[in-house]
């Protein structure tokens, strides 16, 4: 088997072994631990007080904006990696290309900054 496939087979085996390890740990614990059921134990924990309010509250749209900003820059990073490995051979044209790319996305970051979206409450 080629080196490539054997490397990824090892990756898959690591995943399998890790999964089994976690399962074994949880299994051993399931055998060893006590099981004293009590309805109070099922209630959500709020520093020992009686819990009040439902489990859902209205979430700020800020979380979503951060997730989206992350997605956009994540895509940028994903494209930055192949460029980082070959830009030396491709010379100054690829440098300009990537600078344009980074600049356009930087415009987005500056816009978000100016709009005050990067404030975390």
């Amino acid at each position: 088997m080629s080196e490539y496939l054997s490397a990824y087979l090892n990756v898959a085996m690591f995943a399998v072994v890790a999964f089994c390890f976690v399962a074994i740990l949880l299994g051993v614990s399931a055998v060893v631990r006590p099981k004293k059921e009590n309805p109070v134990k099922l209630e959500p924990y709020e520093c020992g007080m009686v819990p009040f309010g439902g489990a859902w509250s209205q979430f700020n749209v800020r979380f979503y904006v951060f997730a989206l900003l992350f997605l956009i820059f994540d895509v940028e990073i994903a494209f930055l990696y192949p460029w980082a490995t070959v830009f030396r051979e491709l010379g100054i044209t690829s440098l300009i290309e990537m600078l344009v790319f980074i600049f356009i996305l930087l415009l987005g970051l500056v816009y978000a900054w100016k709009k005050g979206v990067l404030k975390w409450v």
Partner: protein
Amino acid sequence: MTVNGPTIAFLILASLILSAAVYIVTTRNIMHAVFVHLLALSSVSGIYILLYAQFIAAMQVLIYAGAVTTMVLFALMLVKPKAGMEIALDNQQKGMAFATAGVFLSVLLVVLVPKVWATSQEKLTPLTVAKFGKILFTKYVLPFEMISVLLLVALIGVLVLASKEEE
């Protein structure tokens, strides 16, 4: 089709993806659907690895399983969630939907099943990052720059919508 390691891996991954897809479409629980979607995305990444496109596999995990899934989860949380996140799967147009899907399926079967697909004679070699980078930045530079513009547009769109939401 010779039965060897990659074939078995492909069968496992393909069955994971298909069962995940069926579950996502038929389940009533949105959150379960999102987490099974995560499984489907990781399996697609596995298929990319089998196609010798290792960088794209890692990109798939990073962007889809990471960023997109997180974004979907955050977006779901914004819609004031009911406990259990149950959604109704029934509607009035079941018969019509069934008929349309049936027509589509039969068209696909009639066209695709008898076709003899031409197989490439090239031997697959692992797509190294260097090779990928060279092709991306010489032949496909313009789509690459368009991606940045597209991302900028998406960003501005979301910021505008988000600020409207806060008013």
